[in-house]
């Protein structure tokens, strides 16, 4: 039976109101809605499709505070078999490498055949956790995956390149695939799924239980400040009658090579 890990992150909901904290350290996230990172939902769907095709156990894991359990429950409701919830106060300030270390510690004895992650997170946008996790586990990885095919212990993938080009690559298992959005149609959890999720195991692990300590996940990267760029800077207002404005705008788009 294949063992598949899907790493997912809980991020602010698309419709959530985002204000920067007064100290500029991060956004104000005390009383907003959260959801599973969009990229990760496609990663999860890809894993669940493998499960639908045959024998596979799908494990979901996240690093995040208490609230992140909801994301795991949603994933269990969609069909994942069990969940690992990693949290420790020492992880609150960590960076992508610290998160990758925590995930690697949880994954190392499980011998997963395939690990799926999203290409990046909607909030932090770093796109590093997947590749770092693969490196820490000593397995190959590939990013921006838009199509997967599993055959004879190998994985053949298509990945997205700049300008609409595609690249075909093949990797041996075990490996890590960081997937792009839109590669499949993500299912909704059914009511039965949500009910069954209650009975599925959700293991909580802190750093000690993973054989790590605060020093191991101390950030190597420090966020100095989050801010919204001032309005107007770099903007050019084109004025005049509509047809002139339109033709100037088209000229500008061509000039900048945007189309």
């Amino acid at each position, binding site marked *: 039976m294949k063992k598949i890990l899907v790493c997912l992150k809980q991020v602010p909901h698309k419709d959530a109101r985002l204000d920067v904290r007064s100290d500029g350290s991060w956004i104000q996230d005390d009383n907003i809605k959260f959801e599973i990172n969009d990229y990760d939902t496609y990663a999860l769907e890809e894993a669940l499709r493998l499960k639908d095709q045959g024998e596979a156990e799908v494990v979901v894991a996240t690093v995040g505070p208490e609230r992140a359990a909801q994301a795991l429950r949603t994933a269990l409701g969609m069909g994942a078999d069990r969940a690992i919830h990693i949290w420790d106060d020492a992880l609150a300030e960590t960076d992508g490498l610290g998160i990758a270390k925590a995930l690697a510690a949880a994954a190392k004895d499980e011998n997963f055949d395939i690990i799926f992650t999203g290409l990046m997170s909607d909030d932090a946008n770093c796109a590093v956790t997947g590749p770092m996790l693969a490196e820490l586990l000593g397995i190959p990885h590939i990013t921006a995956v838009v199509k997967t095919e599993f055959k004879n212990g190998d994985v053949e993938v298509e990945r997205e390149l700049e300008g609409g080009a595609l690249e075909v690559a093949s990797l041996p298992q075990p490996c890590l695939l960081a997937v792009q959005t839109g590669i499949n149609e993500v299912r909704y*959890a*059914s*009511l039965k799924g*949500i009910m069954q999720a209650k009975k599925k195991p959700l293991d909580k692990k802190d750093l000690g239980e993973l054989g790590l300590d605060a020093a191991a996940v101390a950030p190597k990267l420090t966020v100095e400040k989050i801010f919204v760029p001032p309005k107007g800077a770099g903007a050019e207002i084109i004025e005049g009658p509509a047809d002139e404005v339109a033709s100037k705008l088209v000229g500008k788009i061509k000039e900048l090579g945007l189309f």
Partner: protein
Amino acid sequence: MDFAPDPELRAIEQEVQKLAATFGDDYWLDHDERKAFPWEFYRAFAAGGWMGTIIPEKYGGAGLGVLAAGTLLRAVAGSAGAMNAGSTLHLSIFGMGPVIHHGSEAMKQRYLPPTATGELHVSFGVTEDDAGTDTSRIRTFARRDGDRFIVSGKKVWNTKAQQAQKILLLVRTTPREECAKPLDGMTLLLADLDPAYCEIREILKLGRNAVNSNEVFIHDLPVPSEDVVGEVGRGFYQLLDGINPERIMLAAEAVGIGRRALELAVAYAKQRVVFDRPIGQNQAIAHPLADSHSELEAADLLWQSAAWAYDHGDRSGGKTNIAKLRAAEAGFRACDRALQTFGGFGYAREFHVERYWREARLLRLAPISQEMALNHIAEHVLGLPRSY
């Protein structure tokens, strides 16, 4: 007292919001205008197993309570579909309450599983022209004929009668004059809505036009006695297991629709600039919206409290009517204020709030009028003398 959100209810809300959000305002405007039943929406929810929310697990449902069903319907009515969406689903959800609580084992085995999957549509046949809220005066009569009943009469406001294969009919089996109490002598039948004996006429109405409301004329409809729900003569009392959940779930829908309207109004008030400032900066716009938000929050607690009480065995109906009263008021006011916020555009169909407004107005009339809810509170909660 624990106000922490229940993880399971949150999961229900989140998934329902996601699924409902795939049917946008244009889908609903189109179906409302064409009076077309929203089959795609119905099937999507049936496939997710949502029709079986309160049906016991043994019969293919999820075995959850009214609190869970209200959470589901609040999210559904809080989507672009508003009451059209709520009414597409809610009869399947609360309508079979009397069957769950009072039906025979054979009846439950036969009818609950297809209700849970969404294959079976059931219409509710209680209200009559001449009886209105005075249910004891219904005239549809079922006379015994050997091992069956023969039903004749007329019902009105039968939601989804055009889609339904069965109708949960409240009929008189003993004339009112011959009963010890006016509400005795009525029986519930889970009858076939057989076109050979039932004529269905659609009622044209102010809003919620994707889901039909009808008059049903019944001429000598045979109903086998195994289709009697519970006990002959106790129908009204058994019906309460559908009526109270209905009021609670519609209170939840009122909160949903009010929130939806408010959301659109707030977004518009931020973005619409008149006299060089967003209109939401004017207190004449901001205060009513803030006030409605607080009213909706209060109503939200009330329906949840009523649902919790019902799920814990309280059948008194006091909290139910309080929740229905306040939620219907808060929901309609929020829609009305949203319409006002949009100014002239609020009256235009393409901005959608007028559709919410038309639909929310219904909740002050149904499933029971505000006045009858007040009568219930006055009589049964405050102990005042009955006024009617």
